[in-house]
């Protein structure tokens, strides 16, 4: 199992990768909050934010195909979640079948929520495509996330590959013993695999910790490539925040 493909553009030289990872994380938060702030029906302003995000995709030198491919999976989930709004929001009925109906307000809200979520999602895809996991950890550390959470994230990420491989091996072994016949039998086997995976994860975690202590671990995972705030990253973040704030304020003033 490998998630390496996620950050395959992290080493591509681009204005995005030259920007501090912490600024990239904050930029995604700014875009997510900015889109959430837009009032319902502010389509023109949402289009401006979408244009800004498309500009960031270009600045990151991400191929459109890669962005669309990565958007596809989460987009299906967002589409399903938004589609519920079609029938849940009351209003003037456009179409109905029995007790279930689609209202005009439901269609408007569905479209706008889907649009907002897609813009925020694209910003998150830019972040994950251009930022390696160690860089993300370093960014979270700079954002003052507690050391215990950073360490748990770092170790958890490293153990995850091993654990998923182990679970796949256990499942393969169970299948080879013909243990998957019938839902009840399969459930029993999967529970056994889950419990076994938990015990192995804890045992491996403790072994890893002993090895880390032997190498001088003092409670904090150091970053091999620490980067500090620079003027360029600060200015870019301020400019983006200003642009997003201007768009959202304009939307509320109906400008």
């Amino acid at each position, binding site marked *: 199992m490998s998630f390496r493909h*996620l950050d395959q553009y992290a080493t591509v030289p681009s204005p995005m990768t030259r920007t501090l990872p912490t600024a990239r994380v904050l930029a995604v938060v700014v875009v*997510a*909050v900015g*889109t*959430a702030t837009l009032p319902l029906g502010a389509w023109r302003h949402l289009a401006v934010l979408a244009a800004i995000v498309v500009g960031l995709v270009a600045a990151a030198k991400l191929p459109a195909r890669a962005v669309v491919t990565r958007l596809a*999976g*989460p987009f299906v*989930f*967002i589409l399903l979640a938004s589609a*519920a*709004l079609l*029938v*849940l*929001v*009351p209003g003037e009925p456009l179409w109905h079948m029995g007790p279930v109906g689609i209202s005009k307000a439901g269609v408007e*809200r569905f479209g706008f*929520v*889907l*649009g*907002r*979520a*897609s*813009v*925020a*999602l694209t910003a*998150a*895809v830019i*972040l*994950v495509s251009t930022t390696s996991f160690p860089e993300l950890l370093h960014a*979270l550390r700079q954002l003052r996330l507690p050391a*215990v*959470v950073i*360490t*748990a*994230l*770092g*170790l*958890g990420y*490293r*153990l*995850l590959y091993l*654990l998923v491989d182990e*679970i796949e091996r256990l499942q393969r072994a169970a299948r080879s013993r013909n243990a998957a016949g019938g*839902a009840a039998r399969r*459930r029993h086997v*999967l*529970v056994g*695999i*889950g*419990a076994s*995976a*938990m*015990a192995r*994860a*804890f045992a491996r*975690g*403790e072994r*890893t*910790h002993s090895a880390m202590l032997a190498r001088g671990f003092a*409670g904090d995972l150091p970053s091999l490539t620490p980067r500090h705030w620079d003027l360029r990253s600060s200015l870019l973040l301020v400019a983006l925040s200003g642009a997003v704030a201007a768009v959202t304020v304009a939307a509320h003033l109906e400008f």
Partner: protein
Amino acid sequence: MAHIPDGFLSVPVMAGSATASVAALALAVRRTRRHLEEREAPVLGAATAFVFAAQMLNFPLGAGTSAHLLGGVLVGVILGPWAGMLVMFAVLLVQALLFQDGGIGALGANTLNMAVFGVGGGVLVYRWLLALLGVGLRRRVAAGAAAAFASTMLVGIAAAVELALSGTVPIGPALVAVGGGHVLMGVGEGVITGAILQMVLRGRPELVSGVPEPSRSGRVLAWGFAVAAVVLAVVAGYGASSRPDTLERAIDRLGIARLETSYLTAPFSDYSAPVGGAWLAALVGLVVVFVVAWVVSRLFLRRSPPP
């Protein structure tokens, strides 16, 4: 909708839930340091990897349906509620940042729902049930399963209330759609949590954090709370008067009711839920009041000097 995506919540709800989550996580960090000490790093890392990996296993539930483990109560029962909250937060962070499963802007709300209410609320129910029933193996398994169901329902109700507060969808349909969907998820979560907990308790009991046998007074208190809560929930709905109180009458007589401004849509205005009426409102109120009272009492207990 266990993981709320970006774009579904309003800024006040995002900010409010993020603030509450930060406060709860800060408390969790302090408590975790005290309990786990230097074992915290490998234990939390292993638990994070386990929860993440276990969510990839799909368990058949029958009738063509399947469910995957959320893991909140399981990890909370094994590590304790505070470390469990941190593990769930780490999992949510990785899911939001790397897999876009749940929005980055909505991370505060998702943390509040799944880490604070899901793990904290679930473990609270688990310990309350153990105080009622005792701490034998079967009882711990049953309490774990029931707590996992309750935890999933809490997550669903919290998500529905946040969506309603954001004005995305009215509270009634939100509770039916999101809360109702979580009933099925809760059944699956309860079954899987109970089954895994049973195997771990039999094979590696040292992994599960211990629960002391409740004292006689503790058990009486737990039963007393249970009976009082049910009686209050049943009687209060019928006993409540629909007539205006003194302040409301004064507002009517002064003719200043038009000045009333609402900054937030209350999901249960006038103590009535759109679905379930006063019953559901009473039930939700009961759970919220209990959780708040428990947290406050724990804070005060910790601050009071030892005798």
